[in-house]
């Protein structure tokens, strides 16, 4: 797979929010690849930098205060970081699309849903108004909403329907990359399942590369091919879905799984991770996770761990896997 040019490649991405009071290190040296047709899950707690990473890819970071400090973002081998706003606008909505977190607020309340879908079609495809409208209706049908409702306003739709509309907008121009930022978090559980299966179907149909941002490991298990675990702006573990789910290595990943209710091991107590995410404007020295890590040693506070490749596709950032550090992981769920 290394020979094929991936649809999306992020390399050493660093993003900071610069305010008067402090510099917030939101994304710290993040790298990953998403090949055509595959789905990467980006998992982490709130504030881990997932959305910032996604917005960097869209180049929709609120600037100021956000600054893309360094790194590369490649769409099919083409670095878009130096792109102008105009060049980006040509890509947004057509090459790369994003589905946002909260469907309730992500649609413009004063425009009809049909207009909102047609708008992106008109922007990126040479079609007439009428054709765009017809296409918009088709998109609605595709996401399971009757095309007749194109003339209605967002407030006339339920949350799940709104999310479908947003997905319809995102997919209207067959994007090569789709970023879905917690697309189901705000929805009822039953509707979550519907939306997810729909997304999976559509993704397969269009062979889209997708990033699915979530803190729900269940969702990841459902549709992702690879998983990146993010903590304090770093990807601390990355691997294929089986590698992560069956063989996670990082204490934080362990914590994540430990805080999930497990139906098979119902007798076991949940093991939530103690403490809170560090303040991203005042990150700890060494491994960012060490203050909360139950295996942490003095060494962990001194040096930031490097990527340790456990296989071609699986890496972890933890001193325990680096040689000669003396850090050991014992007595947990990590095999």
């Amino acid at each position: 797979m290394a020979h094929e040019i991936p649809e999306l490649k992020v390399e050493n991405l660093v993003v900071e929010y610069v305010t008067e009071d402090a510099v917030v290190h939101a994304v710290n040296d993040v790298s990953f690849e998403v090949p055509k047709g595959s789905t990467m899950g980006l998992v982490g707690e709130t504030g881990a930098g997932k959305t910032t990473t996604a917005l960097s890819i869209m180049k929709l970071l609120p600037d100021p205060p956000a600054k893309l400090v360094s790194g590369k973002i490649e769409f099919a081998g083409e670095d878009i970081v130096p792109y102008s706003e105009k060049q980006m606008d040509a890509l947004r909505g057509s090459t790369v699309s994003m589905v946002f977190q909260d469907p309730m607020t992500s649609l413009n309340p004063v425009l009809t849903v049909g207009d909102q879908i047609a708008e992106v079609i008109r922007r990126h495809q040479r079609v007439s108004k009428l054709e765009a409208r017809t296409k918009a209706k088709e998109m609605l049908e595709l996401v399971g909403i009757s095309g007749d409702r194109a003339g209605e306003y967002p407030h006339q739709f339920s949350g799940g329907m709104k999310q479908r509309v947003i997905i319809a907008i995102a997919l209207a121009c067959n994007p090569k990359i789709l970023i879905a930022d917690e697309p189901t978090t705000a929805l009822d559980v039953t509707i979550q399942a519907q939306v997810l299966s729909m997304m999976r179907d559509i993704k397969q149909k269009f062979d889209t590369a997708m990033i699915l941002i979530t803190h729900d490991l269940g969702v990841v298990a459902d549709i992702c091919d690879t998983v990146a675990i993010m903590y304090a702006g770093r990807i601390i573990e990355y691997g294929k879905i089986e590698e992560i789910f069956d063989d996670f290595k990082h204490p934080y990943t362990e914590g994540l799984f430990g805080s999930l209710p497990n139906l098979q091991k119902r007798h076991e107590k949940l093991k939530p991770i103690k403490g809170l995410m560090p303040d991203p404007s005042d990150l700890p020295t060494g491994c960012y996770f060490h203050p909360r890590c139950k295996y942490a040693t003095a060494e962990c506070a001194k040096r930031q761990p490097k990527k340790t490749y456990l296989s071609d596709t699986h890496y972890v950032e933890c001193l325990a896997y680096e040689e000669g550090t003396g850090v050991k992981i014992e007595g947990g769920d990590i095999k």
Partner: protein
Amino acid sequence: MHRYILKRLVQLIPVILGVVLIIFLIMDLTPGDPARMVLGNMASEEAIAAFREEQGLNDPLPIRYLRYVFDMLRGSLGTSYRSSRPVIDELLARFPATMQLASASIIFALVISVPIGIVSALKQNSLFDTVGMVAALLGIAMPAFWLGLILIISFSLKLDWLPSSGSGSFKHLILPAVANGVSCAANIARITRSSMLEIIRQDYIRTAKSKGIGKMKVVLKHAMGNCWIPVITVAGLQFGTMLGGTVIIENVFAWNGVGDFLLKSISAKDTPCVLGGIVMFTVVFSVVNLLVDIVYAFIDPRIKAQYQ
């Protein structure tokens, strides 16, 4: 929608009756004898007594109020003491001029303030923003009549570009409309900026941006579409302030409108004209507020849904 408008119009009636009552009560405190106003200073005592009797000026207040209301329903606002002409004729003769001035002021205000507000919001904390908002604060702090005088001094007396008084041409309209519109513009600019600041942080703006439709379109179509409600609300409220302001602005610019007429009626103690003028302004103000509410429905489908 139609029913809503009808309902609002019906609701307007008690408000207007109340306004009439309040102004009626206030104007009743006015010293001076209407009879003498009508008949002139040389009139005899008998003529005055007869006039009072004939006009029902001796009746108790409630009766006079009811008579006024019934006359009003028949389209009469009484007779001017000075000119002996029906008040409604006097007012309607000047109403177009006042509306011309008021609309020009509000249009001027909107045209200048909305773009300033938007740009200030988009470039928050920039030099433009700072200058714009300081200017807005100054605009609010400036009494319109003083600004009017300053404009006359600069543009009529010193530069001789624009006429200082009278009406008739577009040139005549500029200075009074600016003087009357500046504080309104300042208020609208401020509200536009603060609503814009809120709106451009909304999720749907991010959605719009993610479509790649370009910043201009995002601002003009998506952000503005949502910004109109607070802007129009403030514009509607400012319209009331502006109507009050026309009383002085029309005096400063010798603009022959209802405001100037009202002021002259006050100084001539022409109570029916004062009463009629204030009632007319209030009705206009109420109708404008109603229009604002109706316009809401065209801007925001959620509000429209509530009206139905």
